[in-house]
């Protein structure tokens, strides 16, 4: 057996984990932007906290998909065919969401922006929900026959365990987004984000603990939790405590660690399978019966070893460049800013230069 096969499994797990660490909070910001930003200036401030970042974050998903295609074509083929309709929904959610960022400010009309706000929120909820369902389905088992083909229907995807996982991820993104916003905004927005985080945190905690136990049982492992599962539980407890203790930075970090360890738990418990067959364990897709040839893996290994650190370097630099907090006052229309501040800005007026 080539040692590159487990290496590529790890790379794919890293790409999915990276995707959720990064895109997790920007999904959360997408869900929360209308709640945290009470007026147009506030909503714009919320969106602009992730403005320069979300597009680069989403590429982690594209690359994870492409890496599966290149390293484990059998896995990619079975998984993407089985999830066909769910993926159509996911793509619709991601498309609408991505376009919403770019287009909502491009016309100065309240209804136009309202429409994009709703689409951004819905897209940001649906995407982690569907990806959660999809990833958990790999471990939870799907009807797969001896030819590695999915034999079920759309409803076979919506089993309790995958749905629980989907909801867990949505809650994690929500908490991650709320802590991110309280790190990146000012004044009343910061306050509201923190209160939201407080409200969401206990639910996220409960769902994560449930998810870890369920994952452990589904994988049929020994009685004791493995290290990564343990880490997820400890991290989520820490996250809840830090949120209540109002330690923005650490709360955000703990949430990110929770997200990461949840995703890694799925991959750790799945290995060496990549898709479990609920029809017959003998039909399980494994890293071995779906992998690419050794030469392809070798080529891809060289590419990933050179490029992934470069990508990490410039993405880290991007986060450094945009480290500053975003304030609602930056988005106040100049006319309103010149006049004395109205106590209750009822309808948002034109934003400057957008």
């Amino acid at each position, binding site marked *: 057996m080539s040692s590159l096969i487990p290496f590529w499994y790890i790379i794919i797990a890293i790409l999915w984990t990276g995707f959720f660490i990064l895109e997790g909070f920007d999904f959360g910001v997408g869900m929360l932007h209308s709640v945290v930003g009470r007026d147009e200036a506030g909503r714009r401030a919320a969106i602009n906290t992730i403005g320069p970042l979300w597009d680069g974050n989403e590429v982690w998903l594209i690359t994870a998909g492409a890496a599966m295609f290149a390293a484990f074509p059998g896995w990619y083929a079975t998984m993407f065919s*089985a999830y066909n309709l769910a993926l159509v929904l996911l793509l619709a959610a991601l498309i609408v969401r991505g376009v919403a960022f770019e287009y909502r400010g491009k016309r100065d009309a309240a209804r136009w922006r309202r429409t994009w706000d709703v689409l951004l929120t819905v897209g940001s909820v649906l995407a982690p929900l569907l990806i959660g369902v999809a990833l958990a389905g790999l471990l939870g088992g799907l009807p797969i026959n001896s030819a590695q083909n999915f034999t079920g229907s759309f409803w076979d995807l919506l089993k309790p365990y995958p749905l629980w996982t989907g909801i867990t991820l949505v809650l994690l993104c929500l908490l991650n987004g709320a802590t991110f916003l309280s790190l990146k905004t000012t004044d009343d927005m910061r306050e509201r984000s923190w209160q939201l985080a407080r409200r969401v945190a206990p639910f996220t905690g409960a769902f994560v603990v449930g998810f870890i136990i369920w994952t452990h049982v589904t994988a049929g492992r020994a009685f004791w939790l493995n290290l990564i599962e343990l880490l997820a539980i400890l991290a989520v407890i820490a996250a809840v405590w830090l949120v209540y203790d109002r330690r923005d930075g650490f709360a955000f970090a703990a949430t990110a660690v929770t997200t990461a360890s949840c995703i890694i738990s799925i991959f750790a418990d799945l290995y060496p399978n990549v898709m479990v067959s609920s029809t017959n364990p003998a039909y399980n897709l494994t890293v071995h019966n779906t992998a690419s040839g050794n030469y392809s893996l070798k*080529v891809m290994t060289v590419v990933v070893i050179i490029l992934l650190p470069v990508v990490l370097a410039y993405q880290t630099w991007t986060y450094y460049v945009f480290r500053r907090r975003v304030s609602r006052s930056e988005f106040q229309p100049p006319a309103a800013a010149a006049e004395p501040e109205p106590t209750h800005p009822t309808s948002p007026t034109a934003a400057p*230069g957008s």
Partner: protein
Amino acid sequence: MRLDLARIEFAFVSINHFFFVPVTIGLAFLTALLQTAWYRTKRDDYLRLTRFFGTLLVINVAIGVVTGLVQEFQFGMNWGAYSRLVGNVFGAPLAMEGLAAFFLESTFLGLWLFGWDKLSRRIHLLTIWAVSLGSALSAAFIMAANSWMQHPVGYQMVNGKPQLNDIFAVFTNPVFVWGYTKVLFAALVTGASVMLAVSAWQLRHGGEREVFTRSARLGLLILVPAILFAMLVGDELGVVEARYQPMKIAAAEAQWTTCQPCSFSLFQIGGGNNDQTPTEIIAIPHLLSLLATNSWNGKVEGLTPLNQQYNQQFGSGYYVPNVFIQYWGMRVMAYLAVVVFLIAVWGLWLIRRKKLATSRVFLWVAVWGAVLPFLINTAGWFLTESGRQPWIVQGIMLTKNGISPTVSTTWLWISLVIFVLLYGTLGTVDLLLMLRYSRKELPPPLTEADADAPVPAVLY
């Protein structure tokens, strides 16, 4: 039915995706040129143009990126059997595309947009060049993958599956080298046409004459060589394809019998897979021989003998692509390219006469001329992709065997309807926004006071 639906869906999302791709590649390059001009000369006009066309670029990139995501998922969703068979060759360039190109393009686009006031001018200039490089690179990888489907190289068959054994062969595949070069020139043609059209509209409608004359000139200076090279490279690509995919070229000429030397039919009435004797209107002697083989008396195999040969080689079947699509795809592409070339040369002549900004007829033609590159690109893809049929990978797998065995007709209908509605709506929104922003006034010039102050960032 299943096969037709899956093919229609793939064609639909690909054609739509490729409306945005060449605009992105072309405009990113042109915007980078404008910003470089500003960096070098410190002339305010260039900064204003950079911001103006940068906005158009961003509107386009948004939808280009998200429709690109669909492309990557399509292979697994509807073409599972294909992905399983060829993933270890075809997947590699896709993964490289993500790592080398998409990350670069997306991350640096964010830096460029939001970094105006946060980065030094030099670093900020580099970010737009990184976007331009990223977009051009992504086309390279996907073209390498596509060229492998046209002319598979660098593999050996192991247990009936192609296994990659030479990645360098994949990236030196002649179909790739010529095809990718052609895509780059086509992207420049598209971007430059858009820039020319927007400037022409502005000049006709009282936009600032001096500034938009500048951008119209830049558009033309890129357009003339780009369309010329696109045609020359396209001609060479035809020769390469005639060598590896003779069916494609024979079908593009509706050439049923082998000929030597071969004439090129300018126009015909009728014709198609069931009509082998269309009425040819004008035929130019020797031209097809020249185009397909680069020699005056070159021989072009006809469709009927080729089909017989394929039957012996690959088993009985019908290996002729849709002749009607091939014939007209080729002609729409070539004839419209000539029209674009003529418009561009007319523009150059006007520049020489110093009448570019005042010739209202030319400006009107230039505005509408922007439609042509999109038609040319689409016709070109019809020619390339339909001409590969019935193969999904030439000589290795038939399209009908590539489809996911478990994806039902109902699923395909649902996904097709969703994509059509989604793309229809977003495409319309994109077009309206592009038109709206093309007609806006230029951003105001910097005043003396803030000439040294940072340029404000673009915000959502």
